[in-house]
Each structure stands twice: as C-alpha cells, then as structure tokens.
C-alpha cells in the first residue's frame, strides 16, 4: 500500500481503513470465534504446550499471530516471568511458535511430514513426564528447578522401598530433601501412572 500511494498517503489510508472498519469499533455485532484450547500439532507442539500451560492456558497462543521477532521477544519476557525451560529448548519453542502462529507466514498443512514425524512418543513414561509438566522442572542428567532424574535414582539406589517413597513424593509434593524449592503435589495423577513414573525415574541410575 505504501508503495502505491507513498508513505504518508499509505499511513493515512491505513488510518482511515482502521477508522472505517472493525478496528475502532464494530458497527455490527462481531462473531466471536472461540480460540482453540490446544496447540496445532506439529514439531515440538507438546514441548511448547508443556512449557507454556504451567502459567497460562493455550488460548494465549492460539488466538495470537505474531512475527518471529515478537515471538523471540515474548519468550524472553516469559522466561523473566518464571517460565521453566532448558536453554536448548528455547530455540525449539520459538521455532514452533514462529512456524505455526506466524502473522506473516501460513502454518504448514496438518498432514505435512514435519507434523507427522514428531507425533509418536519415544517412550510412554517419558510422554507422561512431558504432558504432566514434570520435565518443566526436571531433566534426566542435570538440575533444572528440581533435581535431575539420575541424581534421584542414585540417591535411592539399594533402597527397596524407593518406588513407594518416590510415588508418594510425586503425589503429595514436598520440600527439604533437595533444597527449599517445594515440589507441587500431583494428586490428579492415577496411582498406576505415578508408580510407572517412579519406576522409570529409578531406572535412570
């Protein structure tokens, strides 16, 4: 538009379009489109969901389309506000958001190879750990907010009651064993899932 009319005229036209359209005020009732409560499936959509929904529902993303620069900027703001994310995950989450919620570029079609390739989970327990936001605070081999899974497995080595203790810890939460930062309770998890997670953690020795 600015190329056709020149910069000043372009800006004026944009202003007038805005004044005449829905931007200043709708002149008829606007159809309210409910934003999706889940992210578009694609490479690293589960990682992005797991990291983001700890603090806010997915509609904060699904109703939004931003430029790549804005997404990069936004992740910095979210990290400042306490988003738990490992450094190597930051570019993955930015890439997902800038691919699927980009103002300037349409998302790839749902059945594109990139989307399908990421769908199968490597291990069902790992998937449990991701979808329940465990991996927001715990990695296998290093401390994030909470201790690494390997560190936990090593502490409980040789303890025959370890699985039960760990399962209780997952369900009820607590603090003190690894420092003052408390682990939140996860009472919505099924007992069998909790036990499967505890067993898996103890195998990371």
């Amino acid at each position, binding site marked *: 538009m600015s190329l056709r009319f020149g910069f000043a005229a372009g800006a004026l036209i*944009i*202003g007038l379009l*805005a*004044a005449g359209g829905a*931007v*200043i*005020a*709708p*002149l*008829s*009732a606007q159809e309210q489109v409910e934003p999706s409560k*889940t992210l578009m499936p694609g490479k690293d959509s*589960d990682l992005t969901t*797991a990291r983001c*929904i*700890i*603090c*806010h*529902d997915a*509609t*904060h993303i699904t*109703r*939004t389309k*931003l*430029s790549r*620069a*804005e997404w*990069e*900027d*936004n992740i910095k*703001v979210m990290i*400042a*506000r*306490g988003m*738990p994310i490992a450094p190597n995950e930051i570019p993955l989450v930015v890439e997902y958001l800038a691919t699927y919620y980009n*103002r*300037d570029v349409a998302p790839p079609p749902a059945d594109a190879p990139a989307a399908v390739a990421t*769908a*199968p*989970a490597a*291990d*069902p*327990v790992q*998937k*449990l750990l991701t*979808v*329940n*936001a465990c991996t*927001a605070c715990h990695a296998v081999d290093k401390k994030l*907010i909470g201790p690494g899974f390997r560190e936990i497995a090593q502490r409980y080595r040789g303890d025959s009651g370890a699985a039960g203790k760990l399962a209780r810890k997952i369900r009820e939460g607590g603090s003190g064993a690894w420092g003052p930062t*408390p682990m*939140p309770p996860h009472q*919505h998890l*099924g*007992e*069998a*899932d909790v*036990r*499967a997670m505890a*067993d898996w953690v103890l195998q990371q020795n």
Partner: protein
Amino acid sequence: MSHKMIEPSDSRSRVSRRDFMAKVAGAGAIMATGASVPNLVLAQDAPKPPADPAGVVPNASVMTGKDAAIKIHSDRPLTASATAEYLSDDITPTNRVFIRNNLFTPKFEEATHVVEIKGLVDKPLKLTVTDLKRMFSGTSTVAMIECAGAGRTAFNPMPRGTPWPPTGGMSCPKWHGVRLADVLKAAGVKSVAAHVGFAGADFGALSTIPKVARSVPLSKAMEEHSMVVFGMNDGPLPDIHGGPVRILIPGWAGSASVKWVAAIDLLDAPLKGPYMDSSYRVPRHPVAPGSAMPADAVSAEGWPIKSIITNPAPNEKFKLGKPVLIAGHAWVAEAGIARVEVSFDEGRSWQSAQLNAQAAKYAWQTFSYAWNPRSPGFATVLARATDSNGNTQPIVTPWNPLGYYWNGIHRVGFMVEA
C-alpha cells in the same frame, strides 16, 4: 479419546506390547488391590498444567460476583471485562469492574495478611489490614483503574497479550482506604528515597515464578489520591480485586496498583524485575508493526487522553422524531478534560458535547449530547476528547509491541427508523 485404553489401529496412541507389559508388571501390586490399570493412553492427551496450589479462589467462585456483561478473555490467568455499552455508570458497580490477574486469585484474611513497609525508611513497619484501619484516617475517592493493554484488540496487527475488546479493561469504581502518603510518613521516608516499589502476595503454579512487583516515583506515591485500599463501592474489597488490601495509583497503567500488596519498598531507583524491565514498557519512538521491543523503551505510566461512547449501544434502534441521547466518559491521567466533541458524519464536522462535573481528580468525566436526526437510516457517532494540555485523541494509536495505551477515537453505529 481420553478414556480409551489401547487403540492399536491408531498410530498416534500406539503403545508397544513390550512397554505395555512392562508397565502392567510394574503396577502389579496396584492391580492386585483393584486399583486401575496403567492409564497409558492418557499420556497421548495434551500436556497438563500442574495442580493449583492451596489457597486459590476458583474462577467459578470469582465469577458469581460478576454481572453477565463481564466476559472472560482468559481462564488462566483470569481476565474478564465488560464493554462500553455496559459502562454508562459514573461510578462503575463492583460487579462490572474488570478482572486482570497475572497469577492465581489468592485468599487472604485482613487480620493475618501483613503489609511490610521497608527499604529507605527510618522505622520499618509490619502492619495487618486491621492495623492499617486503626492507625490511619480513612479516605475515599472515585478513580480510574485501567489495564495498560485496555483496548488492545483495536490495534492492527494485534499485539500479544490479553485480548481486551476495544472498550474493555477500564473501570471507575469508588475506593476506600487510607492515603499511601500517611503510611509512608509513619515509616519515615529517608531523603534518598525516590521510588516506591509494591509487591503482591499472589502466587503462580511454581514457587519459582516471580511475584508481581512494580514501582512508581515517590512523588506519585505521595499524591493525595494514591491509596492503600481495602474497600470498593461502600463494601469490602473483593478477593478478585486485591482484597483484603491493594494499592491504588490512580490514572496510571493498572499494573502499578498492585493487588494483595505484601511489601511497600522505598528505593533510590526504579525497581528491577520482569514487571518493570520486560513488561509494561512502551517504545520511546513509534516502531514498525511487528517489531520487537526496542532496548530504550520506557516504563508505562499515566494514561493519555481517552474517551468511550456508552450510549447508544452498538446497533441500538431509535425512532425518527425523538432526540438520540449520546453519552460516554472521557479521562486522562495527569491533566483535566478541556472538551469532548462528537461527529455524526464520520469526522467531517464536530459538535461540542456537554461535560458533567468530575467526581474526583482521577474519575472519568461523563459527557452527553442530544442529537436530532433529520432523516432515517444507519447512523454513526464518533467521540474525541481533548485534555487541558491541548492533546486530542488520535484516530488510531501508534502500534507498539505490547499493545498498550489504545486511545483511538471510539465509533458506534445505530439505527434511526422512519
């Protein structure tokens, strides 16, 4: 799909036989007691947030105190507002005051919730709300509270953040409490103090999530309308609006009016932290739409001149031959309203509206105009306000990365029937 156990034909929920058997074996003891078998396929569902911490007021309970005109924009964190046609009251009723949480809605009691006054003071204080009520003389004021991002959806392209409708995210209730200046004086402000920080006691899903905290210059904190608030519209301050105690920094971006305030910190420089250094910032000079926040951006302070049309409601119907009442409110943070004009020909000509008296320094001011349509048809009204410094509302507010300070001219369409 959440309750299906195994769907071998669906590749997305496939669980290998080896994994499944291993899991069943691992859960043998639980199965023997009759508990459920491993819910492996649940793992295919979307990721879930951690459980809410204790002491959270559920959204459903918050919303029972709200009018049907209040629409939810986000469940987590809770944000909700009513649009202009529901905001015609000079004093916004509590059930139409907008909601903007950053974290959960917490529940605290006035006898036990403590506000700490600390930092560059002679005598640090720790006061409960009961203490505050006893020690200082009460005051009230009608004042604007408005989210920095109010009206954000009017920007094009829409920036990130709460999708406030073009006229949502602003309210003008009556506030009851004590003057912030009185509380600061009781603690003895040291001469080197230049800013006052406020931190809320609300909390997020993880203990590592930082507290909501903003600071304002000391001069604004000492202004007589800046308050420590514990009441709204002749009632107690509801939990959702910061009860039992919050700060009011009237006319400024709402984030400075910290809810559930737990700390008042006298500082020699602006507070550091995410709510100062990465949110609530505006570019010093306009940037191209879609740009990142420039490094030299400044902190959001007072709202510029703004107005909304509350009457008529969009698409309201009128009969030709009777005057149509046009009404609305105009406000600006740190000046007065000089005039409000209305236009019925898309801005080609403007007429002066009548201005009612202002209830208090930071209250919005109601304007009205009786319009006599000469012919039937669909009509529009535009309103534009000008402040006492000569600043007039723009047609469109310059775009900025966080979508703050929308104050573009409001326009409403309605029908005049023959």
